[in-house]
């Protein structure tokens, strides 16, 4: 029995339990403070069980037979050739690990502040997690699309109910952009399936079967574009990024972390898994445009980031810039670039997630995100400021930390393809230094502007949590080799049942 369905369903069920716990406690006891904790513990327990399960999958396979670690298949809608097909490879596994780490971060640092209807908050939070994990493991295109859409709904509610001042407009924008582009992907999926049906007479949504579909170059390009637009909106790539700054800024801290840390990575994951691997030829033809978009994203995101005064908005724009590297890496067409993109995704997930948490912590204390009104936090909150400095420096690409590895690998892979693009991209690194250091200066180092009585430093426990993330980033930066090998996407033709070692050293 494969553990994959459990992996997908566990969070949503745990979330339901957390919600129930809260409701039961509200009905039985009128004293609210202890009751809130019960549902929180329930969420934490869910996450722990999920982690144990994942650890079991990761380390429990000494006799691994192929690059696909796990496989699960069960008929769902047989008349349409749709099945519940779940497969796990290194890429999915590493992204799921990233999701879980960030969820722990949120659970420890950001959800205690949620006081209104916290049970529902936990439920929606974990439901988003289910959608994300499902997206990472689904190898049936219908199922993939199902999860892809499913994760939007709870995120929409999270932003619209628990967000900041302009939350509802931001939530609407987020939903409309991602859903609209998702419909294009739906058409592409259907086009691929129907073409496969015409060619072979088999109506199926199986990823591995569809990868063998013979396609004419034009059709292949069209279908790939449908996928690309959906992923580009999610990632985001520059002309379709407009939803991102609003959504990230207005979302509650935990949702911002989820958005920046993992939701964006589903776009990168989709590009690797679907664009490049399903349509390799079309992807090569499209690569110059995609790389151009990537560079534009790097520069534009960094440039705008330099001009922001809202901390969360600054981090949001810096995410656009960093995701530009991911597009660039994926479409270099080399293994090195792909590895760089994956490392960049992991490192950015950690560093941006942590930065959003710090911004959230500042906002909780000062009730503002405006950098003009925050300043000189270092004296009053050394621990928080030091963590902030660390993650800001990580995000600007300091050697020795994960982000640098990712960016460096991407640039290395880009150089042989186009030295001009590589050179241009380097300018993005300079801009990154400007915005990151500007933020550090304004927020932590400038003259104090706020009443120090308001400022309470991070408690030791929370600092310890941040320290764990720092360690991850350092490991990613200093010894990325195992991650590079491990987290590559598995080749198409091989499932867990057949044995073939295809790992480059």
């Amino acid at each position, binding site marked *: 029995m494969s553990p994959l369905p459990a992996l997908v369903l566990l969070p949503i069920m745990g979330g339901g339990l957390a919600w129930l716990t809260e409701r039961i406690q509200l009905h039985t006891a009128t004293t609210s403070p202890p009751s809130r904790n019960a549902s929180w513990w329930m969420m934490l327990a869910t996450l722990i069980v999920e982690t144990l399960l994942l650890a079991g999958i990761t380390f429990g396979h000494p006799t691994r037979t192929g690059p696909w670690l796990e496989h699960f298949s069960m*008929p*769902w*809608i*047989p*008349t*349409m050739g749709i099945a519940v097909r779940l497969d796990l490879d290194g890429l999915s596994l590493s992204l799921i690990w990233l999701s879980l780490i960030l969820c722990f971060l949120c659970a420890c640092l950001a959800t205690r502040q949620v006081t209104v209807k916290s049970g529902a908050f936990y439920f929606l939070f974990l439901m988003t997690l289910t959608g994300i994990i499902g997206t990472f493991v689904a190898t049936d295109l*219908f199922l993939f*699309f*199902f999860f892809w*859409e*499913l994760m*939007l*709904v709870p995120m*929409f*509610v999270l932003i*619209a*109910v628990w967000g900041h001042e302009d939350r*509802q407009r931001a*939530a*609407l924008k987020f*939903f*409309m952009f991602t*859903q*609209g582009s998702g*419909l*294009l992907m*739906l*058409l592409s999926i*259907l*086009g691929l*399936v*129907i073409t496969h049906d015409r060619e072979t007479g088999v109506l199926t949504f199986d990823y591995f079967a569809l990868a063998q579909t013979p396609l004419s170059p034009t059709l292949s390009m069209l279908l790939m574009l449908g996928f690309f637009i959906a992923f580009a909106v999610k990632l985001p790539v520059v002309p379709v990024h407009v939803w991102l700054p609003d959504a990230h800024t207005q979302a509650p801290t935990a949702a911002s972390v989820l958005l920046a840390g993992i939701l964006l990575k589903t776009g990168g994951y989709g590009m690797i898994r679907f664009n490049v691997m399903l349509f390799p030829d079309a992807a090569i033809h499209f690569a110059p445009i995609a790389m151009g978009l990537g560079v534009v994203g790097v520069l534009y995101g960094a440039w705008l980031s330099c001009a922001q005064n809202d901390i969360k908005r600054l981090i949001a724009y810096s995410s656009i810039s960093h995701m530009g590297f991911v597009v660039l890496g994926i479409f270099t067409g080399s293994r090195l670039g792909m590895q760089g993109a994956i490392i960049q995704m992991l490192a950015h997930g950690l560093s941006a997630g942590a930065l959003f948490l710090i911004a959230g912590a500042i906002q909780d204390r000062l009730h503002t995100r405006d950098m003009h009104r925050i300043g000189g936090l270092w004296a009053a909150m050394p621990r928080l400021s030091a963590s902030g400095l660390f993650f800001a420096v990580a995000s600007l690409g300091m050697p020795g930390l994960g982000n640098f590895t990712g960016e460096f690998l991407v640039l290395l892979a880009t150089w042989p393809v186009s030295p001009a693009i590589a050179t241009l991209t380097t300018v993005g690194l300079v801009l990154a230094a400007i915005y990151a250091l500007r933020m550090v200066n304004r927020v932590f180092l400038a003259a104090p502007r706020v009443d120090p009585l308001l400022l309470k430093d991070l408690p030791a426990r929370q600092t310890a949590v941040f320290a764990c993330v720092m360690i991850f980033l350092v490991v990613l930066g200093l010894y990325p080799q195992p991650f590079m090998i491990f987290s590559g996407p598995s080749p198409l033709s091989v499932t867990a049942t057949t044995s073939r070692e295809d790992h480059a050293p």
Partner: protein
Amino acid sequence: MIGHDVFLPTPLPVLCVGITVMLAATAWRRSVDRSFLSGMVTLLLALAFVGHHTGTAPDNGDSLFIQDRWTNYTAILIMLSSMCILLMSWRDGTHDRTTLVDEYPLLCMLGALGALTMVFSANYMPFFLGLEILGISLMGLVTFRHRPVMQGCEAAMKYLILSGVSSAILLFGVGLAYGVTGSLRFMPPITTGDVSPALPVAATVMILIGMFFKLSVVPFHMWLLDVMEGAPVPVAAFLAVVSKIAIFSALVRYFGTGDQPPFLNDILYVVIILTIIGGNLLALRQTSFTRLLACSSIAHVGYLLIAFLCPGRLQSGAITVYLAAYTASTLGVFAIVTAMITPERPDGTVIAQWKGLFFSHPFLASAMSLMLLSLAGIPPGIGFFAKFEIAATGVEHQRNLLLGVLIIGSIIGLYYYLNIIRVMMTAPPLPSASLNRHVRPELMALVIVLTVIVVIGGLFPARAIHPLLPVSPVVPAMQNEMTMH
């Protein structure tokens, strides 16, 4: 043409007897509850007899009625929806307590009878009779709103006039068709040699226009918004669900499910594009819930027509699932709207009044969001799979323009559905203690059942498409005739 041995699907006589009994009971002693109860029992009985018939069907297909899986399926949908609507209307808070309203269930039953007759008909005569029974009983139902009396009357007048005009056009078309073929069989007229080909085309177009009026696709949609707004909420649900299913079922029966003749294709193309875009754009500016649902039902008919235009392996599945999804979700939304209207809050259909529903009625608000998301085509509602199927039929036939329109329409649709959810999430201006927290238990049960259907149907749609109907058995007959000519 009609032998002694009349072929008659059993639900029709059952309904007739039930209605007669109700009528007699009303004449004897008036009681609203008994009227509603006997209506429910009659519908249940008719539902139990849905697969049965009396008499034998003549082999040449020249009977008044027809019965196959498609009729049975739509008949079941119609009867279940009628039951839901009866349940919604029972103890309706907006009814005037001083007058007895036992005509109301009677008219509802008559409407259901008309709809069923249309579904089962294989001849112009029962079809037209059914259409008129449905139309006339609906006119009575529309006036049942007592609150602003004039609005109800205005809506009924609009309905009367436009329905009369469309019936006249349809009847003219039927007459032309009879003139061309000399037969009243319910199928598009086919030229028999020396007649000019323009005549059958004119007949088909006129019949189509008549049907379009009733189905309220876009150039013929103007009446629907006002009528639905003026009518009581359950009657609006009746208009949006029962009468549309009946007409759509008849449309599919009439034109069959094969490839349509080119002129029809062109007309449908234009109509679908107008319907989807027009319906969705109209919905954007609505402030009343019933008007918004009227617009969204226009758009949904547009999506359904895409599947109608794309014959093939996926078509019947798409139509079946879409009808079920549309019925369940729309009825769910209307049931919740009904629950929100109380004598203290008669303006429950104004969207702005729904502020803070998530805080005052969390369950109803969640169910409402689920229904709306299902209508918008978002998982886990059944509407997601339904829209997916519609898109699949379109892709199979490479109707790229229609697919583009489908996407644009869906995005616009998403906006106004989400907007309602947004309003419900907005914190209310003041803690509304005056809000009636008590919801009628039968409505609550109905909402729960419909929610379960929507979720289960969305997660396990295989069951819904499993008993796939060969949508039209008329097709082989028609093709035979075509080859004969």
